[in-house]
């Protein structure tokens, strides 16, 4: 049964239609690849799901919640987390601190208890322990105390993934996680994503241009162009799809 059901989403910026009646769904536990040319609207779709952009039409159902009724700061609470194409980390904070910020969604603190400093210490300890676990899982322990600024791009993408995981999401939105990685590094990233899906009971929506990664980990692929869906199917179906080859993959694929 579908965990995420996107139906007829339309987004307009001024005169430009960025998303044009887009519909697709993802079953619980599935890894779904979202591909398409630059400017097709993939990141716009992510921004609708993480409530950065307002959808002019359509609905998004997440596990029975009307996702479009949840405010941007509330989506982590109901179990949606994302990474960003061009990174959204705090450069001056260490890797560990960046990940702890992600874990804060599940802190028991509210405004009042934080103001009164009730239970802060215990809470902080719990967050820190959780962050260390995730760093170990993603092989980031060595650079835990290194500031984010100055780390290689590929490593920072992994820190972002760790931060998203720390929020203990059910749906994980990954925006171009393979950027800056060599072929063999991309292979291990693919294995990592599959493993994380199993160990953390995740459902994953993956935007990526690295076709080897998309085709190897996805159970299902959605292809967009000009804000609309042009194809949907298994990786092998998509690789044969003439329209997809013409608009996106090109002859070399």
């Amino acid at each position, binding site marked *: 049964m579908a965990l995420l059901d996107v139906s007829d989403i339309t987004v307009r910026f001024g005169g430009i239609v960025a998303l044009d009646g887009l519909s697709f769904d993802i079953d619980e536990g599935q890894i779904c690849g979202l*591909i*398409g*040319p*630059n*400017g097709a609207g993939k990141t716009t779709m992510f921004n609708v799901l993480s409530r950065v952009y307002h959808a002019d039409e359509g609905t998004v159902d997440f596990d029975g919640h009307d996702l479009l009724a949840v405010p941007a700061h509330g989506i982590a609470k109901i179990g949606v987390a994302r990474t960003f*194409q*061009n990174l959204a980390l705090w450069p001056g904070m260490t890797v560990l601190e960046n990940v702890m910020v992600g874990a804060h969604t599940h802190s028991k603190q509210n405004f009042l208890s934080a103001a009164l400093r009730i239970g802060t210490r215990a809470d902080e300890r719990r967050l820190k322990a959780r962050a260390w676990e995730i760093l170990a899982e993603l092989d980031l322990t060595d650079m835990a105390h290194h500031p984010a600024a*100055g*780390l*290689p*791009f*590929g*490593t920072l993408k992994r820190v972002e993934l760790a931060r998203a995981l720390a929020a203990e999401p059910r749906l994980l939105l990954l925006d*171009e996680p393979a*950027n*800056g*990685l*060599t*072929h*063999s*590094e991309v*292979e291990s990233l693919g294995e990592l994503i599959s493993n994380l899906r199993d160990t953390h009971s995740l459902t994953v929506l993956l935007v990526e*241009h690295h*076709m*080897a990664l998309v085709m190897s980990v996805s159970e299902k692929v959605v292809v967009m162009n000009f804000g609309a869906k042009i194809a949907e199917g298994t990786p092998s179906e998509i690789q044969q799809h003439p329209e997809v080859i013409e*608009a*996106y*993959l*090109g*002859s*070399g*694929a």
Partner: protein
Amino acid sequence: MSEALLHVSDLEAAYGAVKVLHGIDFTVNVGDISVVLGANGAGKTTTLRAICGQVHTSGSIAFHGAEIIHEATADIVRRGIAHVPQGRGTFPELSVTDNLEAGAFVRKDSEINDDIEKWLEIFPVLGERRGQLAGSLSGGEQQMLAVARAMMSRPRLLLLDEPSLGLAPIIIEDLFGRLAAINADEGMTMLIVEQNANLALAVASHAYVLEAGTIAISGEPEVLSGDEAVRRAYLGY
């Protein structure tokens, strides 16, 4: 047979206390496309930034016979090196034509406007958007603009840092085709850092593999494609 344009020897570089390059040596010949492969964090980007004077370095960088290692970036550009940095590096708040005009900043000749028209013809998609702000272009268009902007300085050496980053496969294919054409038509020497090793090696005349701040393997593309370890790590077959 061929003349060395860039000769790098014993190059070391560090960000603060973290040493990234541990003494590398290589040469780029006139008219070559040289490609640098390497894992995440191996020092590829740092190598390009070092050539442009954007990081603290020691060792020697000879460009056309002149030592440039302690020169300021703006002066290195005047000597004829153009760099397309990772993540495109355009001026998002400037129009397409203003970006190209800025690319010609170091030039004083009267052919700047002709050159702008020439590059808008070579990249027709930019020609259609000449008045548009660079920030509103799609990723592929921005990458084209970054290359054209770099070419506007009429460089003798073009440095490209992961030009395929974030681009759709079909666009990457197109871009590399155009780079090969620029190399052939203009005789432009290039040093390219690239993760898409298959495509890069297809256009390259020489290639290097950087591992943990040192050059592990170098040679003709065929030499690298013949290497078992290189194949597994970078080519995927």
